[in-house]
């Protein structure tokens, strides 16, 4: 086996076959799920599933059927003719959860329905009752004035509003807000991954130097092979983690979609009722964006650019982090040498918002093409706007050139650095190592 691959394989297996890696892969999305989904699930479990006993005192004599039909399934509805006093007693004794009084004046456009209940029950319950009453009153009154079915249907409609970004492909992606959210998520994800995995490479180099095993390895393989093997192996660990998260994320999203809808707008519309839902379902509140549109935004083309940028950026930084690691004997000594590396990673984060707001400004175009900023800003810009193909190609080409330059410099520093002990290297030293053949 090729020695670089042999080293990459060992570096990879040494890290992936650990409990820590598995925990990291599982815990991060799990944390996300817990953060977003758990409250929603808990909320729906505690309030929505318990059966409610609802007694309706229909003084109009015509609303009961319509209200009962519109009430959510968890409402056990009964008609009552008992006086209000006795209903109050039943509510207090917990023989009844809700007493709903519908005065006859409701059908004349006056008066108000009253909901009697113990404390609690929450807004959801009140919303459900209110929606049911409103729908019933409207339907009965419309029937009274002889409105045609078409009019009733029109009134029952809940038109949705979505924001649309026009692209050259003619496809309409959903929403500026969605783009901003995804833009930030993507930007920070690349930033964190490059940083974490770059540092992992550096730590690996320092460890080998501290262990002194590097001398043994250097008597078996060329330093460049060791450097590349390490960078590639740890990069593969990063890619494995990202792919694992992607798969888990897709699964989570599939679960998250309906739950989010539940969370934001009461019961999900029954199948067949359509996206618009219906009056009967109580009308789901609108999300600021369609969860399904996330999928539409993550096109294969975009994902390709994303992965290439992440890989290019990782390789660029990992090579330089390795060079820094080779020049020091312990991690704490690396801080000062790392500064010129961390700055260009942090800068793009500052430009995330301007980039998403004005993706076609000159500054945005330049930063999205210029390495190493492009590693973060090109994918982010691709979310906000349609990046011309030539710009993407140029950015990726420049990134490749930057990587080759970085690995060249890194290899020269690394070759000398791994054998140096006893003295803290300065930038002057590093530069001298680069120059000497």
């Amino acid at each position, binding site marked *: 086996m090729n020695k670089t691959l042999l080293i990459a394989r060992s570096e990879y297996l040494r890290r992936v076959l650990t409990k820590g890696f598995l925990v990291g892969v599982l815990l991060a999305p799990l944390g996300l799920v817990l953060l977003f989904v758990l409250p929603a699930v808990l909320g729906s479990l505690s309030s929505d599933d318990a059966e409610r006993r609802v007694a309706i005192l229909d003084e109009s004599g015509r609303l009961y059927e319509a209200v009962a039909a519109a009430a959510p399934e968890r409402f056990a509805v009964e008609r009552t003719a008992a006086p209000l006093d006795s209903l109050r007693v039943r509510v207090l004794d917990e023989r009844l959860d809700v007493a709903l009084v519908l005065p006859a004046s409701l059908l004349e456009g006056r008066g108000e329905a009253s909901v009697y209940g113990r404390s609690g029950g929450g807004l959801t319950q009140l919303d459900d009752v209110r929606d049911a009453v409103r729908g019933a009153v409207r339907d009965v009154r419309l029937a009274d004035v002889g409105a045609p079915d078409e009019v009733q249907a029109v009134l029952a409609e809940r038109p949705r509003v979505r924001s649309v970004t026009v692209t050259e492909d003619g496809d309409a992606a959903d929403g500026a807000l969605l783009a901003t959210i995804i833009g930030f998520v993507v930007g920070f994800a690349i930033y964190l991954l490059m940083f974490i995995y770059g540092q992992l490479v550096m730590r690996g180099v320092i*460890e080998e130097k501290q262990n*002194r095993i590097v*001398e043994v390895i*250097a*008597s078996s393989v060329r330093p460049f092979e060791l450097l590349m093997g390490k960078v590639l192996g740890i990069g593969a660990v990063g890619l494995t983690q990202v792919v694992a998260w992607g798969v888990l994320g897709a699964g989570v999203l599939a679960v998250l979609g309906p739950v989010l809808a539940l969370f934001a707008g009461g019961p999900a519309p029954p199948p067949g009722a359509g996206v618009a839902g219906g009056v009967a379902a109580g009308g789901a509140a609108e999300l600021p964006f369609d969860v399904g549109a996330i999928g539409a935004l993550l096109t294969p083309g975009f994902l390709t650019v994303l992965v290439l940028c992440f890989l290019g950026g990782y390789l660029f930084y990992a090579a330089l982090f390795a060079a820094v690691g080779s020049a020091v004997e312990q991690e704490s000594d690396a801080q000062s040498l790392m500064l010129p590396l961390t700055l260009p990673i942090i800068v793009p984060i500052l430009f995330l918002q301007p980039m998403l707001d004005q993706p076609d400004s000159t500054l945005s175009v330049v930063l999205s093409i210029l390495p190493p900023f492009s590693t973060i800003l090109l994918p982010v810009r691709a979310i906000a706007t349609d990046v011309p193909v030539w710009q993407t190609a140029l950015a990726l080409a420049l990134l490749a050139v930057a990587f080759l330059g970085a690995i060249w410099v890194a290899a020269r520093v690394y070759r000398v650095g791994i*054998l140096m002990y006893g003295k803290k290297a300065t930038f002057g030293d590093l530069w001298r190592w680069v120059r000497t053949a």
Partner: protein
Amino acid sequence: MALALRLDHVTKRYGQTLAVDGVSFTAEPGRLFGLLGPNGAGKSSTIRMITYITTPDAGAVTLGGVEAGPETQRRMGYLPEERGLYKKMKVGEQLVYLAQLKGMERVAAERSVRAWLDRFGASEWYGKAVDELSKGMQQKVQFVSTVAHDPDLCIFDEPFSGLDPINADVLQETIVELRERGKTVLFASHRMEQVERLCDDLCLISQGRVVLRGTVTEVKARYGRDTVTVEFGGADGWLDRLVGGGAVRVLTRAAGRAELRLAGASPNDVLAAALAGGADVTQFGVHAPPLTEIFRTAVAEGVQGSRVVSSPTLDAETAPPPRVAG
């Protein structure tokens, strides 16, 4: 296959410092070659060029006629003075990996590693992480990593440092056995009694230059029989008088035993002085100086010798770090 290691006028410069200055020697197969020198003499710099970790600025390093490079790296095993292993990695996995880096196939590497661990009575370490082992055990593991790929050239830099006597014996037996199997063994040390006991040939370097080279017997013969060992009972005042007069130099001295290097006096003078001083001499011998003493003399001569070239000024920024040389 047996391959000779040849260094031909090898020179290595670190900035302004001449770490290795025209060093030449040949280590023959089936012989134990001692590379000696005080700390900072250029031993490690030399070894690094032999192992192709660095390359000489001038001169050539060849193994079996092949210039040092990836090809020769496969055929050598190197035990550095500063030991090191991946601490979290399992012993077996690690040794197989290191052997694979030397170009061995996985299956063959596993077989060889198991055989060597068996030999050291360490089979049960195979699945253990290195940092679960004691220092001495780690040393053995490191030794296995040096020889598991059956190298033609074995380089041991201070192999016995930190080993208890029992383990040192085991190691010594193994090294001697490697020699008997026709391997070329390079042994770097500044522990002269070990070199004297083990090595066939030696090369002494000081300040980057060869100051002494040859077989151990030859080198010792070159320095003549100018050392006496006296074992005696009774008074030892005569010894102080003898030393005070400058006729001899004490190499070692203990109660009832003294090793003296003659400086003007003859062996007879020493014996006469001892008898005259009332000592009860039980044994008296004349022999070549111990290697330690030869080493000291040669280094001192080397320093005084032909260092006409302006002594290298130490450029703080490019000087090799302390441990490079030594």
